[in-house]
C-alpha cells in the first residue's frame, strides 16, 4: 500500500515519545524570557508607523500649520472632525478658529492625515485616552496642538514611505 503523508510511523503510533517531545518543548519554554509588558509601570513605546491619536502640528512660532481647508473633516468616515475657518493676516491667510475631534467617534484610520495637503494633522504615538464623560471626549485645539519636535518620528515616516 502506498504510504500517505498522514500515515504515522510506529514510534508516532505508540504516542509516548511524541508526548515527551511536547512536554520537553513546554518545559524549555518555561525558562525562556517573558514577553509581557507590565503596563502601568512599563509602557509600550511605538515606532513612527504607529497610528495613535490624531493631533495638529504646531510650528516653532506657536501657531498651527492647518489652513482650515476642511478636507480632513470631509474625508473622515465617522464624521468625527469639525473645523471652522477664519481669516488671518499671516501668510497662510486662513486658520481654524475651532478644530474639534470627537474621540468617541474617531476610528484611528489615518485618512485625515493622508488627505491633508499641509501635513498639518498627523497621527501621534498617544494611545492612552480614557474619559469618564462625553464632554471630555471632545478634543479641542488646546489638546490637539502638539509641537512639531514631538512628532518627528511620524513626519519622517510619512515623508519616507508615502
Amino acid at each position: 500500500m502506498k504510504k500517505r503523508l498522514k500515515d504515522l510511523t510506529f514510534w508516532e503510533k505508540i504516542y509516548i515519545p511524541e508526548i515527551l517531545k511536547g512536554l520537553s518543548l513546554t518545559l524549555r519554554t518555561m525558562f525562556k524570557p517573558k514577553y509581557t509588558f507590565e503596563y502601568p509601570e512599563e509602557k509600550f513605546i511605538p515606532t513612527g508607523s504607529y497610528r495613535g491619536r490624531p493631533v495638529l502640528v504646531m510650528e516653532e512660532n506657536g501657531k498651527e500649520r492647518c489652513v482650515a481647508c476642511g478636507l480632513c473633516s470631509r474625508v473622515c468616515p465617522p464624521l468625527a472632525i469639525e473645523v471652522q475657518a477664519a481669516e488671518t493676516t499671516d501668510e497662510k491667510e486662513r486658520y481654524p478658529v475651532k478644530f474639534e475631534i470627537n474621540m468617541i467617534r474617531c476610528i484611528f484610520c489615518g485618512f485625515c492625515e493622508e488627505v491633508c495637503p499641509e501635513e498639518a494633522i498627523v497621527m501621534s504615538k498617544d494611545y492612552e485616552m480614557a474619559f469618564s464623560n462625553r464632554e471630555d471626549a471632545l478634543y479641542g485645539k488646546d489638546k490637539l496642538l502638539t509641537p512639531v519636535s514631538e512628532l518627528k518620528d511620524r513626519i519622517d515616516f510619512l515623508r519616507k514611505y508615502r
Partner: protein
Amino acid sequence: MNILQIIGITFVKILIIFTVMMLTVSYLVYFERKISAWAQNRLGPNRVGWFGLLQPFADVFKLLLKEDIVPTHAHKKLHALAPMIALFVAFSTYAVIPFGPDIKLFGIVIPLVVADINIGVLYILALTSIGVYAITLAGWSSGSKYSLLGGVRSSAQMISYEISMGFSVGGVILLASSLRPVAIVAAQHGWMWNAVLQPIGFITFLVSSFAETNRLPFDLPEAEPELVGGYHTEYSSMKFAGFFLAEYANMIIASALIVTLYLGGWQVPLVGRLGLPAGWVELIQVAGFLFKVACLLFFFIWVRWSLPRFRYDQLMSLGWKVMFPLSLINIIWVAILIMVFKL
C-alpha cells in the same frame, strides 16, 4: 492509649490534613495559572500581594460575592447537592493515605494516617466512583443540554477508565498481598518501588488517574469549545467554587495515591543509613512524601498545558483497546514476578 486519646489524635490529624489540603488547593490554582503563563512566555498573576501570592484569596472573595444563579428548569435540590458530593468525595478520600511513618510523641505511638483500615484501596476506589455521581447529577439537574452532555460523557469516561485503574491496582495488591495502604507502602522499601517493578501498570494507572480527575488531555466532560462549560455550565458563585476546589483536591488525591501505590509512599531510599538523630528520619520521610506529591502535581499541570484534548472516540478506543489490555498484561507480568522471581 484510651478511646479519648484516639479520638483526640484523630481529630487533630483530620484538622491538619484539612487545613493543608485547603491551602494546597488554593495555591495549586495559583501555580496552575503561573505555570500556564510560563509555558506561554507570560508572567502570570503578580499583582495581588507579593508575586501575586494573595491571588487565590482574591479569587475566592470574587466567587463569594457573585450572585448564585439557579436555572428555572433545574432540579433545585440535586443542583445544590452535586457540588457537595464532589467536595465530600474530594476531601474524605485522603483519610486512608499514609503521609509518614509511625512517630513517637509524648510516649504515644502515632501513625501518620487518619484511618489505618485494612480495605483502604477498596475504600478509595469506591469513593472515587461516587465522584462520578457529582458530575452526572450536576449535568442532569441543571436542565441544560450542554450540562447533560458533559455529565453523560463523564460517566462513560469514568466507567471506562475505572476498569484499567482497578486492574493496575490489582498488580500492586498482588505484590504487597494486602489492601492496606500502610502495608503497600511498607512493601516498597528501598528501591523496590512499584513504578520500577511494574512500569506498565504505573503508566496505565497514571493515564487512568488523569481521566478520573477530568484533567486534560481527558477533560471531555467540560470541553470548553463544544460544551461551553460542560457539567458546570449552569453553576455560579460558591457552587461553582465547590466544583473548582473539588477538581484540584482530586488532583492532590490522585497524586498522593500514585505516590502511595507506585512511588514508595513516604519511603526515601537510603535515609536509614545516614545515621541521623531520632526525629530527623521521620521528618525527611514526610518531606519526601510531600516532595513526590508536589512533583506529580507539577506533572499534572505541565501535561495540561502541553497536550491537546482527545476526541471522544479516541478517548474511548484508548481506554478500551489500549489501557485495558495493557493493565491485563501488567497483571501477568506481576504474576511472573511473583512466581519466577519470588518477590
